[in-house]
């Protein structure tokens, strides 16, 4: 039952299905031991934001842009759930796995390359983001958001967005010399992006510079697409948002692979 030797001279390919599957199986089997905690933190937190802002500000602001404030926030916090279930676990999980648990040393001793390892990890986290991202929407429906057929695209939007943020988190972990450095990224990058995404208030009331920066924020494009899914898509604008998220994902993917290769192969 020994494994057949690959033919001499024939290099195994890049991004092979067995290697990706192997890493995904490891994540899925591990997930069975911690899914409760993971699902709790990734869904309860955005839901609390939805409830706190929706009913807190909702009592002061009844509508924004023609939408009930609860509906506005309910659709916006999908992006928050995506961020919380992709970028954060990617940063901390990746760091822990390579620096403390040495899991990646074990995986790379098997026929898996860094590119496959990073890709499978990012795919797994974006799949989770695709599921967790829907939770605030379901809660918002419970509180009065009208269901729409377009909402069936939300898992896909959350997946594409989550892929970029998962790779962002992996790249941060790959470039960081210490887990303490994550504080800089959370405070100086993720929190501003989280606030200037159009989740809790529209960008058009902000200073022009912030509006421009907001337009560059991938979270904002996620928010806009989810609102499109709930209230009606906006033609080419939404196509451009999808393209922007795909571009963000691909860029972050290559950066994450570069960062982790530097970290894992010396």
């Amino acid at each position, binding site marked *: *039952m*020994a*494994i057949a*030797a*690959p033919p*001499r001279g*024939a*290099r*195994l390919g890049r991004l092979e299905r*067995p*290697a990706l*599957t*192997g*890493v995904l*199986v*490891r994540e899925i*089997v*591990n997930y069975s*031991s*911690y899914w409760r905690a993971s699902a709790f933190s990734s869904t309860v937190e955005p839901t609390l934001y939805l409830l706190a802002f929706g009913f807190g500000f909702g009592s002061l602001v009844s509508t924004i842009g023609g939408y009930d404030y609860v509906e506005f926030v309910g659709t916006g916090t999908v992006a928050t759930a995506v961020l919380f279930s992709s970028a954060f676990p990617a940063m901390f999980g990746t760091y822990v796995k390579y620096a403390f*648990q*040495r*899991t990646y*040393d*074990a*995986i*790379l*001793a*098997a*026929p*898996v*390359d860094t590119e496959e390892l990073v890709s499978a990890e990012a795919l797994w986290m974006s799949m989770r983001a695709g599921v967790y991202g829907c939770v605030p929407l379901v809660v918002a429906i419970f509180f009065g958001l009208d269901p729409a057929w377009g909402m069936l695209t939300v898992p896909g939007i959350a997946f594409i967005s989550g892929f970029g943020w998962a790779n962002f988190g992996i790249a941060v972990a790959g470039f960081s010399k210490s887990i303490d450095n994550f504080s800089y990224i959370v405070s100086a990058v993720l929190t501003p992006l989280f606030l200037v995404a159009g989740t809790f208030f529209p960008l058009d009331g902000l200073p022009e510079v912030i509006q421009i920066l907001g337009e560059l924020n991938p979270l904002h494009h996620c928010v806009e697409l989810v609102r499109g899914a709930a209230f009606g898509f906006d033609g080419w604008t939404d196509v451009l948002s999808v393209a922007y998220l795909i571009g963000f994902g691909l860029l972050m993917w290559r950066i994450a692979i570069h960062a982790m290769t530097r970290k*894992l*192969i*010396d």
Partner: protein
Amino acid sequence: MSADLAIRLRGVVKRYDEITAVAGLDLDVPLGTCVGLLGPNGAGKSTTMRTLTGQSIADEGEVEVLGYRLPEESKQARVQLGVAPQLDNLDVTLTVEQNLLVFSHLYRIGRHDRRAAIERAIEMANLGDRRKTRVDKLSGGMRRRLLIARALVHRPRLVLLDEPTVGLDPQVRQELWALIDALRAEGTTILMSTHYIEEAQRLADTVLIMSHGKAVASGAPAELVAEHAGREAVEVYGPPPTLAEVEASARELGLRTRRTGTSVSVLGVEGIDGRAPEGERRPANLEDVFVLLTGEQID
């Protein structure tokens, strides 16, 4: 590359900034043998192991594993390679069976063969009654056996064991020796790094002694002992001035000595009947060779 070599290193150099971890290493590991990589901490053993899995890229020299040239063909080599690392990197919240299941996927074992492969690995590691136990509930020895079982789940042609018994108590160490010996008897090629001399002496067909990133000697343990330390040694105990005198006298006779804590060992005394110092006579051993070649002081 010779068809009967599992590993072939020529002039391998690996530097980390100003530190040269491996400094021109040559190593041959014939198929079906167990080779011990013996050296003190910092000798370059672990870096050599990482070079063989493609996790360290040599700055100079040639690295071939199972006929594949590294780093270009490292993935092909890893299909047939098993690695038990020095540091325990098992998934601690998973059971014994789940850990093996994950690696049966990573090592590309076909769906139909997976169950049998896991059973065989569990049996080999003697963990049958712990198959459903989470790793964080296993003893240190069981975890180490599982690490080795994980490296064997796909029946690799070559196994790298990096300090397989470090930090374990003698009983557990002996259990693992039996496991490694069984593997050797099956014809699996093994490269085992260790700084336990007894381990190398018992398990390895040949030993390569490393110091400061270089090979300083290689050969069968008995040959190395005969070549560098002779057949017999006399161990002399006493206060430091007496030991210094013994060392000086031995030097005059052209004999080599080494300090062994509270005593000094005079080596190769079998040919100087009547002139050997008074003391405890014993057979020379691999530890004598190790200390002679790698130095008495820890860097």
